[in-house]
């Protein structure tokens, strides 16, 4: 802890100087007497005892949160010797507000006394919240000297994007070999009835279709379609960003990705994630709640990293981007590199759906209202129609979403055509 004089010393010094100057000038003894208490205060402020030993414990109530949830920070302070005045300040990261208590507090401690300080924070945006521990300032007598130290704590609270249930996620065109919720064209064990065929040795009695048997004579059995799962890969565009902090198109796309991941994982599908931006990061397709956790952890850190380097999706290994997977691209379609990448994927035969997150609403939120802004927003929305229609003509399936209304409403309008050949 480094001790030093505070600005209050200058005020005292000014007063002492004036009092002595006027005393000499006028020859009045009272003015010298006036200077004595401030001089004594200044002298006492420099007479410090041993620096009090403080023990600071820093705890957070949660390490994983959803957006807009609260986390309680508890700081425990213990002093071995008496501390006349100690100030604690926990620096708050962006998009974090105090909802209960205060992140700035003053305490006085007797020898051996323990003080518990608690405040609650609300985390407004998707982020990895790093609470580095409080700044501690000990005040000397009269506030004429202060010592400062930073107590380092390494708490990272993951604030996940808020996700809601989806009723209409795009249906995968191709299924995989594991059991799932989609009716496969292949025949086998399942509950969805398929064709009827004559009985063959090895068929189970419970598959005999008695109605068809009575009508046709020989024994007939009902075949069933298998229920299979699918691979879904979420392709998140982090090449460009529009909008105010916490409400950018990347934030909206991350929320949509969380919604989609939760919906597909609930249907026993395998879900993977590729962050396509300045850094190419991915999560290998998997299923289950642990996979949802992995996807959310990656989404928390998804951000725009500026780069001129174009990374091709060819760099992504097939185990991350399986050929039979449904690829859901979430993008504002602002960066031509991403447009080129999704066109390339569609041309290579991937089952692809692009969720085009409109940057217009985010940009409006950033610039505020006004007639000029309204006109510019309308013009921009019209200008975006052309490139999106051009991509549709080239065979891409595009769902337009404004990033504000529920994603499910936008996906409900999706009518997927049969697999078509895409002109790259």
């Amino acid at each position: 802890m480094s001790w030093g004089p505070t600005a209050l010393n200058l005020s005292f010094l000014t007063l002492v100087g004036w009092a002595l100057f006027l005393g000499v000038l006028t020859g009045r003894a009272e003015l010298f007497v006036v200077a004595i208490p401030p001089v004594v205060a200044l002298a006492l402020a420099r007479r410090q005892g041993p620096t009090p030993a403080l023990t600071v414990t820093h705890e957070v109530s949660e390490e994983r949160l959803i957006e807009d949830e609260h986390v309680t920070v508890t700081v425990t302070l213990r002093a071995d010797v008496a501390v006349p005045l100690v100030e604690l300040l926990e620096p708050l990261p962006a998009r974090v507000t105090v909802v209960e208590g205060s992140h700035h507090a003053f305490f006085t401690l007797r020898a051996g006394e323990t003080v518990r300080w608690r405040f609650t924070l609300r985390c407004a945006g998707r982020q990895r919240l790093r609470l580095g521990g409080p700044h501690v300032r000990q005040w000397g007598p009269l506030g004429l000297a202060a010592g400062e130290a930073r107590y380092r704590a390494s708490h990272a609270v993951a604030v996940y994007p808020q996700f809601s249930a989806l009723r209409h996620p795009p249906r995968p065109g191709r299924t995989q070999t594991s059991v799932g919720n989609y009716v496969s064209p292949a025949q086998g064990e399942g509950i969805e009835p398929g064709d009827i065929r004559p009985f063959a040795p090895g068929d189970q009695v419970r598959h005999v279709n008695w109605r068809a048997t009575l009508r046709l004579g020989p024994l007939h059995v009902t075949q069933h379609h298998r229920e299979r799962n699918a691979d879904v890969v979420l392709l998140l565009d982090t090449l460009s960003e529009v909008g105010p902090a916490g409400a950018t198109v990347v934030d909206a796309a991350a929320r949509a990705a969380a919604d989609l991941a939760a919906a597909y994982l609930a249907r026993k599908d395998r879900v993977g994630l590729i962050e396509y931006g300045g850094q190419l990061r991915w999560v290998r397709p998997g299923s289950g709640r642990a996979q949802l956790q992995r996807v959310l952890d990656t989404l928390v850190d998804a951000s725009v990293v500026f780069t001129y380097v174009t990374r091709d999706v060819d760099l992504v290994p097939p185990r991350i981007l399986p050929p039979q997977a449904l690829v859901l691209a979430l993008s504002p379609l602002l960066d031509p590199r991403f447009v080129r990448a999704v066109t390339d994927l569609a041309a290579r035969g991937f089952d692809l759906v692009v969720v085009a997150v409109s940057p217009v609403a985010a940009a409006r939120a950033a610039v505020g209202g006004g007639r000029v802004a309204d006109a510019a927003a309308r013009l921009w929305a019209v200008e975006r129609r052309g490139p999106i229609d051009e991509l549709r003509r080239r065979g891409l399936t595009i769902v337009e979403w404004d990033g504000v209304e529920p994603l499910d409403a936008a996906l409900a309008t999706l009518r997927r055509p049969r697999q078509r050949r895409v002109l790259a």
Partner: protein
Amino acid sequence: MLRLAAILALVVLVALPLSVWPAAPVTWLAGAALVVGSAGALALAVALTTVAAVLALLAYTVALLTARPAAEPASAMVFGAALVLLLAVVHLGAAVRGAVLEPVVIARQARAWLTIVALGLVAATAGVVGGAVLGPALAGMALPMVVIAAALGAALTMAGVSALMITRGAPPAPDDTRHASRGTP
């Protein structure tokens, strides 16, 4: 509460010059000190409060020069103590603005301030007694010598106080602070 305490100290500072000589120039200076000091106390601005304290000191000086009363160290000691308290209260108020502050903190701070002020008053009393003892010894000296001695004393005081300010405190012991952090499992 801190603002109220600061205004009380300010009222003492303004009232003392007026009690010595309630004439026009003193009233103007005291009024200016009251206005500026009130603004400083309400806004918890140490700089404004310092300006008000200097104005009050000027008013006190003008009152002493004009009225030429007999030496009265008691009121001067009160004036000095009020100066210290005013600045200390406003400085603490500015520091704690928006922070969690329990009443016990203010109570213990007030006790510490009063202790320091009491020590200041004891020192001032000792100075007055010393001056009273030393006064007859200097009775026969020429006037320039007295002025030079006073100026030299004032300069030495200022130099000493400045040195106190500039000199940094002793370096902390390497193990004077500890910390620990623990997350919820």
